[in-house]
């Protein structure tokens, strides 16, 4: 197991005694896509503190997206343990509909391809989908949507169909839709891909502000220049695996 800071090591030690310092704690995770398939994740251990911003690096096919799927509970590891906010995320936990929904509300996932995140008739409905699911009243849903439209400077797009917009605009809408749930942790898969320089700077400022507010952020990006000083730690997924 490779832990990247003394704090992380302490977090791991304390976590085994029942008190959790970290928001995300992965211990000796192994994963393959089938019994006869090669392991994609091998003995991966990782500890992420609350409010940390992590830049996850690694070549194509190294398992970054698979790790993100595990972190979001979309795939379950073959072996190893995953704790999120001191809760063991396993098959039993995710089988409980209520627990799974609370977990998904607390961890927001921005997919690399925004196309697969947009299915509503208008941008307004797309951003409002999550808050409506949470059972917020119409006034609160409207406030959240309007605030996020303003934050991402896409107010003019509110009534447009998301599917016919440009790649950069779709990315912003998808990010806004994730933020509308107000999650504790953000998993951002290539958040700068397909964005122009101005939009990259805007998303960079946004991530910085999220970090200042104490949100935990994990970013996968190939372009380090976009992340700049945002990341507290840079982790290479290949180095995180023991085998």
């Amino acid at each position, binding site marked *: 197991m490779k832990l990247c800071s003394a704090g992380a090591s302490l977090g791991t030690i304390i976590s085994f005694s029942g008190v959790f310092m970290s928001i995300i704690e992965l211990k000796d995770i192994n994963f393959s896509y*089938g019994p006869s398939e090669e392991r994609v994740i091998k003995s991966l251990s990782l500890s992420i503190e609350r409010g940390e911003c992590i830049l996850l690096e690694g070549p194509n096919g190294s398992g970054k997206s698979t790790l993100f799927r595990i972190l979001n509970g979309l795939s379950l590891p073959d072996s190893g343990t995953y704790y999120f906010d001191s809760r063991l995320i396993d098959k039993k936990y995710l089988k409980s509909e209520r627990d799974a*929904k609370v977990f998904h509300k607390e961890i927001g996932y921005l997919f690399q*391809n925004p196309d*697969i995140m947009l*299915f509503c008739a208008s941008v307004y409905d797309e951003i409002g989908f999550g808050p409506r699911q949470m059972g917020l009243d119409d006034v609160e849903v409207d406030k959240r949507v309007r605030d996020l439209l303003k934050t991402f400077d896409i107010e003019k797009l509110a009534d447009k169909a998301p599917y016919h917009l440009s790649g950069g605009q779709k990315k912003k809408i998808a990010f806004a839709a994730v933020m509308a*749930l107000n999650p504790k942790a953000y998993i951002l898969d290539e958040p700068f891909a397909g964005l122009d320089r101005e939009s990259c700077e805007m998303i960079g400022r946004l991530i910085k502000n999220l970090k200042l507010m104490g949100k935990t952020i994990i970013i996968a990006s190939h372009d380090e220049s976009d992340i700049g000083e945002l990341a507290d730690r840079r982790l290479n997924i290949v180095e995180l695996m023991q085998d």
Partner: protein
Amino acid sequence: MIPDWMKEDDNYVSPKDGGTFVIKTIKSLAHLMARIKVQKGHEKKRSMPVLLKLILTLLAILTIAISKESLSLMAIGAVLLLYLATWPGEDIASCLKGAVIAALFTALVMTPAMLMNPAGIRNNLSLVLRVFLSVTCLNIFNHTSQWNHISLAMRKLHIPRIFIFTLDMTLKYIVLLGNLIEDLLTSMSLRMVGKNTKKYGSLGGVMGVTFVRGNELNQMMYEAMQCRGFTGDYNQF
């Protein structure tokens, strides 16, 4: 820049929804896609060329169709079941499932005829058996052969290229659009954190996006073909 409501964590408790339709749909779609893409089966273990398998399957179906003796049908059935007995249980079940459904459907369609003409029950039951055996043959072939190998085998049998091309394209689009639907439902499930009162509306959105995407892919592929010299004629090479 950041809205005020984001500065504090929501004290959120999810209401009970009672519907896990999205998760179930994702699982069944993923299973179907995995079968089409990987075609998990016995091809690695069985060394018989796909061309030979295709010819044998066609011959078997022809024999089943023209056979007059129920004894010969039962003999073919026994051979097929013996062959299937060497497979793992899960594969046997998935192979026989379609055949049983097809046979039951045939039996259902034949029921009025059997009730109105009890003397012809034997022939009607023979038809049900023929359907069961034919679908089992096809399932065995499908289960033990990869799509690309089937296309190659069909080319060797001089089946018209336009037919093979259409089949290949259909399979390609089933996989592409199936993956898109699976991804859309997965991202939807991540944001379905409470009670969804508009389940069918959400599913309608997924269907609409898939239709638009299918249309776009179709247009893009046609333009790409034009760029590579396609003039509307499928030539034999």
